[in-house]
């Protein structure tokens, strides 16, 4: 059924969040809060070098230390052949993941795991780690993407021959892959252009900076059954990776999802779980492991840093006739940056006849990148949206008008293949033009910037069950970890379909043994895909409720109507019965056929793409180079906001992470390739006092493929901020800041250079 034009009573309201009390009272059980009788502690020995051959690892002294129960190295893990894994979000190779969690032969970045210890106490485990003797042959390293692409750069993988070029290269390099996307005739496009603008941009890797470090508790029983407690964006993902990396049947692994303290894409792959299981197998004890913040920075994936060029050609009237982009993405130590989506998203907001995009996936001696909100798109859009802004200046055009003139609409064929359908971009641009912020006069010295962004959003496999309890209350369970409020939205969609109050519905997350397979919480898919599964499962429950009423009244099922939480006889012909509410039917469920419940598993199709536009005002302290965000408005097509507060929170959070990316977040490496700022003191995420209120404007153009019209909302808002801010700085100072972060020293240096 489709409820888009229905009179909705629950969906679209703002009930109190179901996880609120647990979280504000500190009772929520996050990964590190789980304990088990007889539990011991696992710790990891990490590489102090950016790039080195492991000559030998001597664990004998560590093993001899009293209190040490097990020591493992890569020798304790099966060797796995190269095989692509579509388990988490973004490309990952099983062999690389195995090498990433326990180095084999070489360490490829500072912090790379190469051995692990389990001991009675954390202190003993720390001592044992220090007793492991590793002999390294330190190798030359490379950090920067442009350096890593040079012919004389140190090569990380002797078997890496650039994919996507013909013929296959004769020598290995750090370029894992080349991808291209073409539409029309780029040369003809530039030949027809009257104005051409070209510039180069760089971005730094930035971490998802979830507040909860990775942690897990794993138990390997002598009968081969494994239990894992961990937070993640997908407990089925943990199961699949752990099974593969250790050669264990999935049926023998049960993963219990803990409350998650943020993921943003960074918890769509694993680091600790197979190690903890291996240590438990060897020690016979439950093993708990947790990363420190330093471990998180040194060894878990940020998103790519990149080097990007953009070239745009336009007619004097503002029609963009040619658009070209070259993107070089750091993948970290193993192949698999988000270069694909990076190549697709930059120009997806535009209807341009001739497009040519070339992307490189490049390895270097940094931690392997992981998904981060709209992987690849923020980097690509930073470059494109700065270039479009400068093109508008060259043309003497209002930057919004230039975007309006070239905006993608339903029917626009993208350069990566699909044709846009059911998109709400026009409405987003209309809402931007109509917004008071866009029209507000600018204070002296302030600058205003605009940037837009696009993200696909995905569907995929989801499972949901709905149980009617004996008292008529309802439990909804899904396989989707709740990172952004899905318990609230799942419960609300079920309550809406049932026609009951939200207080009668509880949504939970079931473990891997208790519900059907569910893909990770990523790609902004859960409200769309899992929400669809929940809606369908609830509709099946409604059918059963109607059948039970029909049975009670002894009339045909199609003579029963379900309205406002009650069964009614459909019309006077059906008979004159008092309506039966959910509680009344539930009370008698044993006598009318047994428990009322349903399970639905789907592979949801038809996710609606998302578009956003951000307006940002800044003040620049010309003496210190410090940029202050004065006003910030984020406008986005959200399809249908199931719980508007969560949707606004997603948009505000995405904007804030983008502001950090723009102004202050970066990995700082010394000349030995070691990270100098692996903590929140010097890896600078914005703090609350750095920010104005972020105004989130919800544009609702329903996605017809979802029962309530929902689109994914969590990723779009991190795409526009960097360019919006760079464009605002240009407005305030006349200077283009093409390199992120636009930190005070850089802004001041740019100002000094300009005189």
């Amino acid at each position, binding site marked *: 059924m489709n409820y888009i034009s229905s009179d909705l009573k629950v969906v679209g309201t703002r009930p109190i969040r179901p996880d609120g009390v647990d979280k504000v009272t500190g009772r929520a059980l996050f990964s590190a809060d789980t304990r088990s009788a007889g539990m011991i502690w696992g710790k990891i020995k990490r590489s102090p070098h950016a790039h080195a051959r492991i000559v030998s690892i001597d664990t004998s002294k560590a093993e001899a230390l009293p209190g040490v129960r097990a020591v493992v190295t890569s020798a304790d893990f099966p060797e796995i052949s190269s095989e692509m894994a579509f388990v988490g979000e973004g490309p990952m190779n099983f062999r690389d993941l195995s090498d990433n969690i326990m180095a084999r032969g070489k360490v490829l970045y500072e912090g790379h795991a190469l051995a692990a210890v389990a001991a009675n106490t954390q202190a003993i485990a720390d001592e044992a780690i220090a007793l492991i003797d590793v002999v390294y042959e330190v190798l030359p390293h490379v950090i920067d993407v442009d350096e890593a692409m040079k012919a004389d750069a140190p090569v990380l993988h002797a078997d890496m021959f650039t994919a996507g070029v013909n013929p296959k290269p004769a020598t290995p390099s750090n370029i894992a892959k080349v991808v291209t996307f073409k539409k029309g005739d780029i040369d003809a496009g530039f030949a027809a252009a009257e104005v051409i603008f070209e510039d180069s941009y760089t971005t730094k890797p930035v971490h998802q900076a979830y507040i909860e470090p990775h942690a897990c508790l794993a138990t390997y029983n002598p009968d081969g059954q494994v239990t894992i407690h961990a937070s993640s964006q997908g407990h089925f993902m943990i199961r699949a990776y752990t099974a593969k990396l250790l050669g264990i049947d999935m049926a023998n692994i049960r993963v219990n999802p803990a409350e998650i303290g943020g993921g943003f894409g960074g918890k769509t792959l694993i680091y600790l779980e197979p190690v903890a299981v291996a240590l438990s197998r060897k020690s016979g004890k439950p093993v708990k492991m947790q990363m420190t913040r330093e471990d998180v920075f040194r060894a878990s994936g940020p998103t790519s840093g990149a080097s990007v060029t953009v070239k745009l050609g336009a007619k004097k009237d503002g029609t963009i006739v040619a658009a070209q982009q070259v993107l070089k993405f750091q993948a970290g130590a193993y192949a698999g940056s988000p270069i694909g989506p990076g190549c697709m998203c930059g120009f997806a907001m535009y209807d341009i006849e001739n497009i040519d995009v070339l992307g490189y996936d490049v390895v270097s001696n940094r931690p392997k990148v992981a998904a981060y909100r709209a992987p690849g798109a923020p980097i690509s859009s930073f470059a494109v949206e700065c270039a479009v802004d400068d093109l508008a200046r060259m043309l003497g055009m209002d930057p919004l008008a230039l975007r309006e003139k070239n905006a993608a609409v339903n029917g626009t064929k993208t350069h990566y293949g699909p044709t846009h359908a059911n998109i709400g971009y026009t409405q987003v641009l209309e809402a931007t033009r109509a917004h008071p912020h866009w029209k507000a006069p600018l204070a002296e010295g302030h600058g205003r910037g605009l940037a837009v962004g696009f993200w696909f959003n995905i569907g995929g496999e989801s499972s949901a069950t709905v149980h009617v309890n004996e008292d008529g209350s309802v439990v909804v369970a899904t396989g989707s970890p709740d990172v952004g409020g899905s318990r609230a939205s799942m419960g609300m969609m079920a309550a809406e379909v049932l026609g009951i109050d939200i207080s009668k519905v509880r949504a939970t997350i079931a473990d891997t043994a208790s519900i059907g397979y569910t893909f990770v919480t990523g790609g902004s898919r859960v409200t769309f895909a899992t929400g669809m599964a929940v809606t369908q499962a609830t509709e099946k429950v409604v059918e059963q409720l109607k059948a039970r009423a029909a049975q009670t009244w002894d009339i045909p099922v199609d003579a029963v109507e379900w309205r406002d939480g009650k069964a009614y006889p459909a019309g006077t012909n059906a008979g004159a019965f008092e309506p039966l509410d959910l509680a009344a039917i539930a009370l008698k469920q044993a006598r009318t056929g047994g428990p009322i419940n349903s399970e639905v598993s789907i592979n949801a199709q038809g996710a609606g793409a998302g578009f956003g536009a951000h307006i940002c005002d800044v003040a620049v302290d010309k003496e210190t180079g410090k940029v202050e965000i004065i006003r910030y408005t984020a406008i986005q097509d959200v399809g249908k906001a199931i719980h508007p507060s969560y949707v606004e929170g997603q948009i505000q959070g995405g904007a804030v992470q983008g502001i950090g990316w723009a102004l202050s977040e970066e990995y700082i490496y010394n000349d030995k390739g070691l990270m*100098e700022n692996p903590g*929140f003191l010097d890896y600078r995420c914005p703090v609350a006092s750095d920010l104005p209120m972020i105004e989130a404007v919800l544009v609702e153009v329903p996605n017809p493929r979802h029962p309530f019209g929902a689109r994914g909302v969590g990723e779009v808002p991190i795409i526009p901020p960097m360019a919006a801010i760079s464009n605002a700085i240009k407005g305030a100072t006349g200077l283009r800041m093409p390199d992120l972060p636009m930190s*005070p020293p850089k802004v001041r*240096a740019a100002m000094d250079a300009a005189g």
Partner: protein
Amino acid sequence: MSSLSYAAPTSVDAAVKLLAGASGLAKVLSGGTDLLVQMRAGRFKPELIVDTKKIPGVIGIREENGAFIIGAGTPGAVVEAHAGLTAAWPGLVEALDLIGSTQVQGRCSLAGNLCNASPAADSVPALYAAAAVAVVVGPNGTREVPVEQIPTGPGRTSLARDEFILEFKLPARPARSSDAYLRFIPRTEMDIAVVGCGISVTLDANGVCTAARCSLGAVAPTVLLVQAMADILVGNKLDADTLAKLDAAAQAAAKPISDKRGTAEYRTKIAGVLARRTAAIAFDRASGKATGKTH
């Protein structure tokens, strides 16, 4: 396995004895907002921690004939709530208040900030500018030490292992005196100063400076007391010419390194910028034009 003892003596003598008697590393504890963080990071493995907070005089503020005596371990939140001190030394109070967050303010102290001996410590340039004196206790009794003689390098002080600071003395102020402290950080809080600047001045009735002390933080291995900056202010009003000279003097005094928090070149320029801005606030306050907070 290593072990750690903790003691919270209630007299100076007992504390000194504990410190002197320790065989391994003994550390004095005030708020612990540096010490505990550093221990957790593995920077120190002390055998003994001597908590000073139960010693009479370590926490609290007294006024004696216009002079103020601040217990060495008095938390920032307590200092900021003291109206008299805030009126007389607004720069020092706001420098201490800049440290950390509300939670950290419940613990962080002047003694800890000074003896942690970070060149970027926020209250230290203000203490230098204020001509504060540290009352140091040890086995040989009590000695009074100008604060600028306490830090000797990053993480190092001139205190003996069995000495600690009991309290700080701030001199009584002539009329038309005030102070200010500014730091530059990339964010608005929870950051370490890229540069800090403390300035304390006394003006005559015409707004001409008659006495000044100026300091810079985070531009050298220790906080610097910069006589050249004070020399420029004394005898002058804060006009454009004086400001320009002050900026130049600050830049000349700054000897920063390039690190993850800023390049030497940038820090030097910011030292000049902050010197001008800090002086402007201190002069305004001394002439009664403004008493409000600057952050």
